[in-house]
Structure formats: structure tokens, C-alpha cells
């Protein structure tokens, strides 16, 4: 905490360019970066995660075709097996599906959807959880009791069940035929409402500790309004655990989205995520066309595994008891 205050003062005096250099130095010198360099598995996981993000960002450049554009799909090219097998054809590295869609291109675009839904879901659930946790911890009393009771009840139900229910309700309110973008919104909503509890509990716990400290009393004395104290002063001191939860929840959010899409309640086939691709590919498993399901599945598994490894490392690295 005191470090952050010092940093704040330093920043005000030095020029913007020097701030960036200083920040970089500070990052390289930090304990976190040291523990990062010590763990080879973490470095590999970080590299793989970064690679996945880059692949998703540059999907439109890297893919040999746009799998959403029917004009680019040719039925002549359907059901081609991967390039290294006997029937492989260039440029379809990982083969094509029933509609002549290049599997690799579909994965790249699907990865983009999966990551967007996952990240937006984490942001939404984080914002909701932090807001409710801050309120519960700072205000206390009946408000606290109500929020935490809801959290308790919700925590005993699996997130996937809640997400499915919210999905079903949204469908019946907005009608069964939602377009792709609103389906994406519904998924983000469902994931956000399923995963806010952990943030709220953690933030509330930290706030209960922090709010009795002198700096909060000082902020109250100079007449700052409660929302400002909560957001500007208390919240930054609770960020460590939130970062850990957010990382692990990113993996959970991606799994949840993939599961919903696999169950047929997620992204439609016109704008498939990795989960949708797996659902489509699953239908061709018995015809021997294993590559349509295997590669999206592999991509999903590796992505989740690397994010989980990153999250595990972050949890240990930020926990002072384990140092």
C-alpha cells in the first residue's frame, strides 16, 4: 500500500516518458516477475496464452478464408482430411468440414468469439461482484445481510445450471430466434450473473478489514463521499485477490460458454465459438471425420489448461504466506 502511495507521488513529479521507463523497471525488479522467471511451466503457459490471444486478434489475417462468408465456401472442398494424411489438400492444414469450411480458419474465428465472451463475462461478473461486495462491506447492516444471503444461496448451485436457466429465460423473454450479437450478450449476462459471488465475498472480506484503518478515517474526515472512498481508496487495496479470481474465472467463463454452446444454448452455427464447433464436429465423429471435432477440442483444452496454470501461479505468487 505504502509503495503505491510513493509511486503516486513520484508519478506526479516526473515526465510521462520517464514514468513508462520507471514502470517497466519496477515490473522487472518486482517479486512477481522474479517468481515468474523462476517457473518454467508458468512461462510456457503465459507464452501459449499470449499466442492464443494473438491468433484471435489476427484471425482475419491468418485464416485462409472467412468461415462466416458463404461466398467463400465451396462444397467441392467439403470433408477434406488434414494436410498430412493421404487425402489432405492445400491450403486446408487441418482439413475441412461438411460445408467446405476450413477447420483452422473456423478455430481462429471461434477462438475470437470464445475469448470475447470469456473476457466480457469476467469483466461483467467482476464489476457486479466488486460493486456488491464494496456495498455490502462498507454499508453493512441489512444491505450486507441481504447481499450475502443471496450469495450463499447462489454459491450452492453450480454456475452452469444458473447460466442455462438465465439463458432459457432470456430466450423466452426475447423470443427463440435471437441474432448472433444478442446471443453473445445473453451469454455474457448469463456468465456474469453466475460468477459474481466469489468477487463479492472476497471484496467484502477485504473491505471489512480496510475500512477500520486510519487512511479511511482520514478520507472520511476531509469529507470525501462514500463512493469515492470505496472506489479510489479501499478498492485498490483489494486488487490482488481479485486479479487471481479473475484469471481463474476467465478459464471457467470460457468453459461455461463452450458448454452452453455445446448444449445448443450458446452461439449459433452462423457465428460459432469453439464450443459450437465441437458440437457440429461431434455429429461427424461416427463418419470417421475426427478432425472436425478433435482440433477445436484440442484448442479449447490447451487454452483452458494454460490459463489455469497461469491462475495457479498467480495465486501462489501473490500469497505472501507461501513466499
Amino acid at each position, binding site marked *: 500500500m505504502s509503495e503505491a502511495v510513493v509511486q503516486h507521488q513520484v508519478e506526479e513529479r516526473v515526465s510521462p516518458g520517464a514514468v513508462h521507463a520507471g514502470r517497466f523497471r519496477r515490473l522487472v525488479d518486482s517479486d512477481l516477475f522474479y517468481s515468474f522467471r523462476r517457473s518454467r511451466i508458468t512461462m510456457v503457459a503465459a507464452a501459449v496464452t499470449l499466442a492464443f490471444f494473438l491468433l484471435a486478434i489476427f484471425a482475419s489475417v491468418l485464416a485462409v478464408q472467412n468461415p462466416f462468408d458463404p461466398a467463400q465456401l465451396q462444397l467441392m472442398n467439403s470433408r477434406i482430411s488434414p494436410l498430412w494424411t493421404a487425402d489432405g489438400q492445400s491450403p486446408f492444414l487441418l482439413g475441412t468440414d461438411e460445408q467446405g469450411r476450413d477447420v483452422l480458419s473456423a478455430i481462429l474465428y471461434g477462438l475470437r468469439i470464445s475469448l470475447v465472451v470469456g473476457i466480457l463475462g469476467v469483466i461483467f461478473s467482476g464489476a457486479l461482484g466488486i460493486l456488491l461486495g464494496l456495498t455490502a462491506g462498507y454499508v453493512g447492516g441489512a444491505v450486507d445481510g441481504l447481499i450475502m444471503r443471496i450469495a450463499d*444461496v447462489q454459491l*450452492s*448451485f*453450480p454456475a*452452469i*445450471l444458473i447460466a*442455462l*436457466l438465465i*439463458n*432459457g*429465460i432470456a*430466450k*423466452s*423473454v426475447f423470443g*427463440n430466434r435471437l441474432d448472433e450479437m444478442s446471443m453473445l450478450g445473453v451469454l455474457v449476462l448469463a456468465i456474469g450473473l453466475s460468477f459474481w459471488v466469489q468477487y463479492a465475498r472476497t471484496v467484502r472480506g477485504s473491505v471489512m478489514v480496510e475500512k477500520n484503518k486510519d487512511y479511511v478515517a482520514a478520507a472520511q474526515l476531509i469529507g470525501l463521499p462514500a463512493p469515492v472512498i470505496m472506489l479510489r481508496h479501499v478498492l485498490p487495496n483489494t486488487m490482488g485477490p481479485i486479479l487471481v479470481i479473475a484469471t481463474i474465472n476467465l*478459464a471457467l467463463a470460457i*468453459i461455461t460458454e*463452450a*458448454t452452453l454452446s*455445446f*448444449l*445448443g*444454448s450458446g452461439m449459433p452455427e452462423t457465428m460459432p465459438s469453439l464450443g459450437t464447433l*465441437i458440437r457440429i464436429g*461431434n455429429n461427424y*465423429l*461416427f463418419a*470417421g471425420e*475426427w478432425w472436425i*471435432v478433435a482440433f477445436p*477440442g484440442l484448442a*479449447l*483444452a490447451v487454452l*483452458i*489448461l494454460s490459463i*489455469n496454470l497461469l491462475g495457479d501461479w498467480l495465486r501462489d505468487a501473490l500469497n505472501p504466506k507461501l513466499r
Partner: protein
Amino acid sequence: MLAFALRRAIQAIGVMIAVGIIAFSMFRFAGDPVSQMVSLDTTNAERAAIRQSLGLDDPVVVQFGRYIANAAQFKFGVSYQFRLPVSKLLTERMPATLELAICATIFALVCGILMGVYSALRRDTWLAHAFQAISLIGISLPTFLIGILLIYLFSVTLGWLPSFGRGDVVHIGWWTTGLLTLSGLKALIMPSITLGLFQMTLIMRLVRAEMLEVMRTDYIRFARARGLTTRAIHFGHALRNTLIPVITVVGLQFGSVIAFAIITETVFQWPGMGLLFVQAVQNVDIPIMAAYLMMVSLIFVTINFVVDILYTIVDPRLRSTVSRAH
């Protein structure tokens, strides 16, 4: 003790009423129930008659009271897609789900405990490291991918096991079981493994951690000093003491197993409640969704309540802290 049990019971009922309100509002406000039941050429007069017969013109509070009263008698209305009473559909499919959930739990218990004990006692062997790796993969791989992988291996490639359904079932009263036929047993293997794998990793980690903890205690050292055999120490003393938390976790997780069966049942087209629920979500069949929500909540609340009460009976220390805390 009685006061504690009563307070818990009131809390449990409170939760069920909250779930009831959610289920009722889904049924009443998410879409119009009448428009789901009629065809396009139904006249307005007929619609009004249906509305009247469903009691949708009554005050909302009266409707809610009636909904709860019906739900308490397991009357959940009529399914929009099947035109059959929801309770009939659910009871038809409940044995399949329960059988699957129980088999998955047994699989998870047996394998999880064995792997956990082994990796605690022989910590640095390659097999123990392999178990750790499996547990990491078990947590990272989504359930449906494990299912697809098993189907590809054992159904498509090897042709040993059926990839969907329950096989032949035997009717015992209203209950149907696949445990008494060969094809039923074969059909159970892959879904049980798929559903139980996550619980297995959970149990394995728990048993490993508990065993390591227990092996450091004084009574284990004393048992050694008495000259007991290693086997008696490991299994008679150490393992027995790790089993209480394991049984608690398994009990508390049983509700989750039933809920997670949704995914497994979809992969293997297992004719249980989960598959029914997924189809209901896809087809916006609100009565089934609401009924499933109520049923699963009831299972969760009951298990939590029973575990809470059992805990205070088994562990007197907890009783005293509970009464002091309030």
C-alpha cells in the same frame, strides 16, 4: 441443538420459497403461457377460455399460492412440447439420472481414494506424479470433451461400448434400472466415468492432503511405536480419519453431480432429467425448466440441511461453538 435445527429448517424453507418465486415468475412472466399452448388459428374466445381455465385472470398472489400448493404435491403443470404433465415426465426420467449419479459417485469414491492414498504414501514415485497430472487435466478438460474422447476411443475406434442411451432396462414398479442387464451395465460405464472424473480429482486431492496431514500426527507415531504393521497404520488409522471430510464433500457434491449430469446426459443421449432440461431450455418449455429448478433446489437444500444437522450430532465441538456464536 433443537434451536439450531429449527433455525436451519426455517432458512431452508426460506430458500425454497425464494426459488418458488423465481420458478413462478419464470412461468408467469417470461412469455405468455397461453400463446405457448395454442395454435395460430385459435380464436380469441378460445384463448380467453384457456386463460380462464388456467386461472391466469386471478390476482398474482392467488396464482402464486396455487402454484406453490401444486408444486408441493408435485404438480408442475403441462409441458409445452410434450403436452404431458411435467411430473410424469420427470418421474419417468428420474431413475436414469439417479442411477447415473450414484454410479459416477461410487466410481469417483473408489478411484479417488485409491489414487489419493497412493500419492500421499508414495509421494515421489512416477505414478504419484502421473496422478497429479491426471487431476490437473481432469479439472481443465471440459466434461463434454472427456465424453467425446471416450466415445471416439471405445465406441468409434474399438467398438466395445455403446455410445448413447441406456441399453435394455428392467422395470421394477415405476423404477427402471439398467443395472440388471449386460447392455445396461455396458451403457453405464462411459457416462459414469465422464460424470465422475471431476469428483474423482476432487476426492483424490482431498484424500492426499488429509493423509499427509494425518500421517504427521502423534497418534500415528504412537501406533508406529506400538509396532503395528504399516498396513494397519495406513488403512486402520490414517485412512479412517481422512474419510469423514471425504464423506462430507461427497454428500455435499451429490447435488452438483445431478446438475452436472445435464452435460453428460447430452453427450451420451442418456434419457434422464438433465437431457429433458436441456431440451426444455432449447425449446423454451418453461414448465419443465421451472420444475427442474425446484427439484434440484429441493435436493440441494435437503442435503445441506441433513449435513449441517449430522455435523453437529457427530462433532460435539461444533455444537458448543454454534450456540456460543449466536
